[in-house]
């Protein structure tokens, strides 16, 4: 517990110039919105790329807009695969939940005036922005965007353009972008951890923190431990490509009959470094969403979170185990089969805290008084998608079964449901839930509901059939699968998924319209439109520059005091003193 929030800060004055207020702002709220808008831009790019891919898969010979030459070449398809994955994982799924909502709401929810290091926070955002510029630049350099996938496996990514178009400048920019992103995320993680530990309001003990804060806190710890490893990997890969080193390149490589001047490196080393980051990254994307789901399910069921402590502990357990399972991406890589088996058992065990979370979410709903507001619909959708996407992981976690499913569309279906769509549902839930606080106005509820129905049905229509394509043997990352003996007959299923993808993609325009329309025309929200309990709802919408107008709260109770027997009102804010609360009896 800390009293810093009350005494340690000078009076915060809002900067008057446009640049210091909106561009190089050190206000965590502005930075949070900057991260959110960056992610919104990135997701639009990412969706367009995926729609181009889906279109190409069913109409491989068709003329396409945005594609140089008109008809998509295999290397252009692989560039889309690479850029879609990279942009979505880094600049959407990592950026929006943590950089966006975490930045905006973590300090407010713990009763702090800002992050612990506001200038570092600004630096984090602008380095992330540079990383985004670098990745987008990869589209337009000679040779085009890289074709080695978001995992950038070397030697394909490690030798320059001899291995394929896009492997020259495009791949270099990819590495620069990812390395910058790692640097920014490291700084951000430090800031989140310091803020959570040091700036909590009086009375805000760890077990009185909202589960959203738990989610961001554990995510920040994962980020601190994971991004450093990828940063190191990125630097070594860059040296292999540009300085003649051979960290990842063995002797005797022959490309186009030309012996390459490398020796002594190991391609598996890159995979270990990448996945030591890459698997925790999956949880970096989903843990904040889990926090939001718990928070929103409780608020709109008008019930405390079922098993709050179990939920907080399960977040920690997932984070901890998340560092011990990276080898399940490498069962068939040539890694020792004994290691593979150990990784398999550890991976199966991560299903346990995941199941605990699911059961507690249903427990939170059980006996509730469920209000189907748009944030709640997306939180419920999150639970359903997380269950569907998570359970297929139990197949892939077993190396024997992985023998038949690895690198098929089954894997694509699995991770899109569980870390893609579920995480995006977490982001939508957070957006509909906190928009009123961030901008002082409500989003249109009818439009939000239409958006939900299309997106929920659409997500399942795209990704559920994809499991079956994978089971039948459809291989991912094939620019054209019509030539294979089995995959050709799966084209009608691909067709169905493509139509579903276009409809679902179009439905996102409803969200965009609602977002920007509501900024100006939404109903005035007031301080606490959802009758919620946590500290962000006791301050103005939007909050003043120092979050609480100088009147910093103290905390007297847990975060989810809904429908407590004996009170006239069905929610008790965290900052009410026992005396104030007694007046509600």
């Amino acid at each position, binding site marked *: 517990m800390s009293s810093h929030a009350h005494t340690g800060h000078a009076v915060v004055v809002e900067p008057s110039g446009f640049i210091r207020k909106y561009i190089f702002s050190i206000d965590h709220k502005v930075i949070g919105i900057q991260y959110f808008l960056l992610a919104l831009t990135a997701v639009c790019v990412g969706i367009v790329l995926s729609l181009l891919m889906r279109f190409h898969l069913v109409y491989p010979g068709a003329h396409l807009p945005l594609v140089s030459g008109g008809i998509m070449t*295999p290397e252009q398809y692989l560039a889309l695969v690479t850029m879609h994955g990279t942009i979505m994982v880094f600049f959407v799924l990592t950026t929006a939940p943590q950089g966006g909502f975490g930045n905006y709401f973590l300090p407010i929810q713990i009763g702090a005036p800002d992050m612990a290091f506001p200038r570092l926070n600004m630096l984090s955002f602008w380095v992330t922005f540079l990383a985004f510029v670098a990745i987008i630049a990869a589209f337009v350099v000679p040779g085009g965007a890289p074709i080695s996938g978001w995992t950038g*496996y070397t030697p*394909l990514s490690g030798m320059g353009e001899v291995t394929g*178009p896009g492997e020259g400048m495009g791949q270099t920019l990819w590495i620069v972008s990812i390395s910058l992103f790692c640097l920014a995320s490291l700084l951000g993680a430090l800031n989140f951890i310091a803020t959570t530990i040091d700036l909590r309001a009086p009375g805000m003990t760890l077990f009185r923190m909202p589960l959203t804060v738990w989610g961001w806190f554990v995510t920040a710890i994962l980020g601190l431990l994971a991004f450093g490893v990828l940063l190191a990997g990125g630097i070594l890969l860059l040296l292999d490509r540009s300085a003649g080193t051979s960290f990842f390149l063995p002797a*005797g*490589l*022959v*490309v*186009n*009959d030309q012996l390459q001047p490398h020796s002594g490196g190991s*391609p598996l080393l890159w995979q270990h470094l990448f996945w030591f980051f890459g698997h925790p990254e999956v949880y970096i994307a989903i843990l904040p969403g889990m926090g939001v789901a718990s928070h929103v399910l409780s608020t709109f069921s008008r*019930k405390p979170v079922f*098993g709050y402590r*179990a939920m907080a502990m399960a977040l920690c357990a997932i984070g901890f185990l998340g560092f011990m399972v990276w080898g399940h991406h490498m069962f*068939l*890589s*040539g890694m020792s*089969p004994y290691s*593979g*088996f150990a990784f*398999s*058992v550890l991976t199966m065990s991560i299903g*346990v805290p995941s*199941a*605990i979370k*699911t*059961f507690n979410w*249903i*427990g939170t709903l*059980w*006996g*509730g008084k*469920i209000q*189907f507001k748009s944030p709640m*619909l997306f939180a*419920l959708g999150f639970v359903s998608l997380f*269950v569907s996407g998570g*359970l*297929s992981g139990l197949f892939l976690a*077993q*190396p024997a*079964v*992985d*023998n*038949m499913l690895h*690198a098929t569309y089954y894997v694509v279906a699995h991770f899109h449901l569980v870390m893609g769509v579920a995480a995006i549902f977490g982001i939508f839930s957070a957006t509909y839930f906190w928009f009123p606080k961030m901008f002082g106005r409500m989003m*249109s509820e009818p439009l939000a*509901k239409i958006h939900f129905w299309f997106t929920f049905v659409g997500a*399942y229509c795209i990704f*559920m059939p994809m499991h*079956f*394509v994978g*089971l039948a*043997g459809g*291989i991912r*990352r094939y620019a054209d699968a019509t030539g294979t003996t*089995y995959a050709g007959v*799966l084209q009608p299923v691909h067709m169905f998924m493509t139509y579903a993808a276009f409809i679902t993609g179009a439905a996102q325009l409803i969200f965009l319209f609602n977002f920007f329309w509501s900024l100006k025309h*939404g109903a005035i929200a007031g301080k606490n439109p959802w009758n919620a309990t946590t500290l962000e709802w006791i301050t103005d919408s939007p909050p003043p520059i120092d979050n609480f107008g100088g009147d910093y709260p103290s905390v007297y109770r847990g975060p989810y005091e809904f*429908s407590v027997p004996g009170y006239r009102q069905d929610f008790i804010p965290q900052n009410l003193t026992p005396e104030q609360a007694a007046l509600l009896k």
Partner: protein
Amino acid sequence: MRLSNRNSSSGSAAPAAMLAALIVIMVAATVYVFAANPFPSRPPAAITSVGLLVDHQYFLTLCVTGTVFILSQLGLAYAIWRFRDRGQAAHFTRGNNTMEMIWTTATIVLFLGLGLMGRKAWAEVRFTPAEANAVQVEVTTNQFVFNFRYPGPDGQFGRLDPTQVSASTGNPLGLDPKDPAGKDDIVVPTLTVPVDHQIELLIRSQDVIHNFYVRELRLQQDAVPGMVIPIHFTANQIGHYEIMCTQLCGLGHYRMRSFLDVVSEADYQNFLKQQGASQ
């Protein structure tokens, strides 16, 4: 259209019914496809005993996860409908430690048990080395072809020299002409093996990472430059099967294919004789 917010506690029935119904339909459709196979949604039959073990483990996992999937989705749908806002008071509870213990223990037993049971199908191929009399074939991959090398009558693979690799002049593997053991080596673009005989593949790559995957074998293995990775199998069905590269290896990845021909012992000997004569 009225876009403003209506803040009433009634009106929960329609969204509750719709969401619950959609979840039930999703579960029903998924179960239907798994059960009835209305479009190709299963792998072709396995042609090895290990493949059948893999299929068995897959089926076991499907039963366990399928049960959890159906129960939790239907539980969710039920809660959504049953506990919709009808003006009632929510039932106050902070949780239930007994239930936490029950579902934690249950999932530990179920998930870890499943993981441990999966050991057998994995160990059969990966923990045990090939038999001494297994037919050895070396698999070499490069952008975007497979080459298969048989040691010839002497049973010895000749030395490879990466400086002599020249696909354009007919020496894609860089066989060293000075090594007598290499004189009778057979190099072909497709894999032919005898039925009911153990085969050991020595998998390697010249440039980037590729993969050797045959669905009917339920066997997949990356080909990693700098490594020679052995795997073994015994095919029990004569037939023509597709070999595919499943590791992203460059622009021609999608067309990197070859074929596995499982033939009778007599046909296999003929194949060796013909190829030996022509090389």
